[in-house]
């Protein structure tokens, strides 16, 4: 391999939110880094860059039995082409059109072996227009999904809204996505370092930021389809039971679950287990040791549609080692000879 694994930033946002302004800023700023940019509306960029790639947004289904598993065929080809170039790229930025569902782009980095070898998803960045976002959330499911998928939301055009309007937009964003980092901007003026190289998909960074709500409180407003649910327990989990349960949840609800993230404490294990998924495609591993005195709390956050909190909570709580033991004992009791 001539290149090491390249970080990829997916840039989403509704038409006119300020994506192109941000891209131009990234490309023209003097940061000494080499980025390839995959864009869809060629010619809009005002910057001359030989690493701008014109893409077609060809979404196709993987025949792997997963009904929601769609990937970007053009991206697979482009990434395989980019790694042939001489000289290490510092990153790849994939811009999606305003109406695009971010899932196929994200899933491409989980589903294709060659792409996985060459590149990895760094973060999903969504540019939102503070003035128009609420209207967009009302009339387009894509706008909602772009917020739901984001690791970083750049709330742009802040100069055009009153403090009250800004607070309302933020409230709506938090109802959909409580964990994303939120940054305000005017004319997309955020530092490049805040956007690129975030490693949001690095398991070690899962839930690094606390979701911005009190645990146990659900977030959904009645005018929004997408909601988030956060669950936690200080009782250690049984890994087998958790795997069986989360596997089942992702298989059955994967289409409705946009993103899932979790930090888990397993029974008898001194290491932190991190987990994240985009729809049905999941990734998980031990990332570090629990620190001395650190509360060993397992937390999991679901963002999606039509989520049943009592059911998810019940399922999650049945994964504790305590519940596993209780289930074992009741099973034992059931089969024991009558005294």
């Amino acid at each position, binding site marked *: 391999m*001539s290149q090491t694994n390249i970080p990829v930033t997916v840039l989403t946002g509704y038409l006119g939110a300020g994506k192109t302004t941000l891209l131009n800023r990234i490309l023209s700023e003097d940061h000494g880094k080499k980025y390839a940019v995959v864009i869809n509306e060629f010619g809009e960029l005002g910057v001359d860059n030989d690493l701008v790639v014109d893409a*077609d947004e060809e979404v196709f289904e993987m*025949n792997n039995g997963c009904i929601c598993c769609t990937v970007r065929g053009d991206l697979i080809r482009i990434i395989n082409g980019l790694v042939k*170039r*001489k000289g290490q790229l510092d990153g790849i930025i994939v811009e999606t059109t305003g109406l695009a569902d971010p899932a196929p782009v994200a899933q491409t980095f989980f589903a294709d072996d060659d792409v996985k070898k060459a590149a990895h998803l760094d973060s999903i960045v969504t540019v939102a227009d503070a003035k128009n976002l609420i209207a967009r959330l009302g009339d387009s499911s894509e706008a909602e999904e772009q917020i739901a998928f984001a690791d970083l939301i750049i709330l742009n055009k802040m100069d055009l809204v009153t403090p009250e309007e800004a607070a309302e937009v933020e409230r709506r964003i938090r109802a959909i996505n409580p964990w994303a980092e939120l940054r305000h901007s005017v004319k997309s003026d955020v530092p490049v370092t805040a956007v690129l190289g975030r490693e949001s998909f690095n398991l070690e960074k899962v839930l690094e930021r606390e979701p911005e709500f009190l645990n146990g409180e659900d977030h959904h407003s009645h005018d929004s389809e997408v909601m988030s649910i956060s669950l936690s327990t200080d009782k250690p989990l049984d890994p087998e039971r958790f795997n069986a349960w989360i596997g089942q949840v992702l298989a059955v609800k994967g289409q409705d679950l946009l993103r899932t993230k979790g930090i888990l404490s397993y029974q008898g294990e001194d290491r932190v287990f991190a987990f994240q998924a985009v729809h049905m495609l999941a990734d998980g591993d031990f990332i570090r040791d629990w620190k001395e005195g650190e509360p060993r709390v397992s937390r999991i956050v679901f963002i999606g549609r039509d989520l049943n909190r009592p059911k998810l909570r019940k399922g999650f709580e049945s994964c504790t080692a305590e519940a596993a033991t209780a289930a074992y004992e009741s099973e034992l009791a059931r089969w024991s000879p009558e005294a």
Partner: protein
Amino acid sequence: MSTTTQPEFLIDSRGTTRETDAYVVGLGFCRATGTLGAGLGDGTVRIGTDLVTHQAHEGAVLAFCPDAKAGFLTGGDDGRLVSTAAEAVTLAKYGSRWVDQVAAHPDGLRAASVGKALHLLDGKGEALKSLNHPSSVAGIAFDAKGKRVVASHYNGASVWFVNAKEDKPRFLEWKGSHGLVRFSPDGTHVVTAMQENALHGWRLADGQHMRMSGYPTKTRSMEFTAKGRWLATAGAESIVMWPFFGGGPMGKPPTELAGGDGVFCSALACHPQHEVVAAGFDDGLVLIAEIGSGKVLPVAPPSESPVSAIAWNASGNMLAFGTEKGLIGWLDFSAR
């Protein structure tokens, strides 16, 4: 075989290796002179055993093949189709789009894919026609006679007659994303490598489907043997050979060559006359395997970089290979 002695690699006694420091995208031998040529990730085409450098493209060479009559044909991420012999000559510019695939036929035909379009050019570089597809073209190939060209894409492949007055393809349908594509040498079958770690084939006479699966990874290289009896394929821990005789490959298991060390085959080339396959692996190992006996000859030792290209010359006495890191090696098998 003793486990303590190192196998003897032919490259040490009969070969030469050179470092180029750029991804070897493709290599081959000139149809006119038999000279070695390679297309690299730094945009250059290197020609001859001195690897004389020609800057064919600004970015990377994305596709490479021996050109129709002489020299080498390349497509690049600078949107250009270039033929390089004595010097690099731009045959066509396709703007900002990448030239993803190229193919050439000795009758003086060239093909280049750019997005959803397949462009056909004649020997002089004049555009003959542009053929459109429902989605991006991911693989192209001429049949042995140069009468037909096939392009693979999402949900199947399209077979076009090069000289048809009215361009209407025969659409070979199969759900999924199809990449690399090959005609059998007798022109009766088309086979594609799919996104799903499987091959799909069509018998053109009756449209019979063939599914060849079981690969642990994607097949990035495949070729029919000279007489078309076997389809040799990469993508597994061995060279997987599908029999195209005696009613196969339907209902027949493939033959596996040179397998067993847990490293995937990444590139291969069939000998132009004999039933012999040269194969490269993900660890840089190169070997030659005889189909009939299963006998294996080690050619080059592991070099820590996957073999990305491998080719025989027309008479089958020269073999060349290249790796992703930029190693190029070649061997002379002729009697000394």
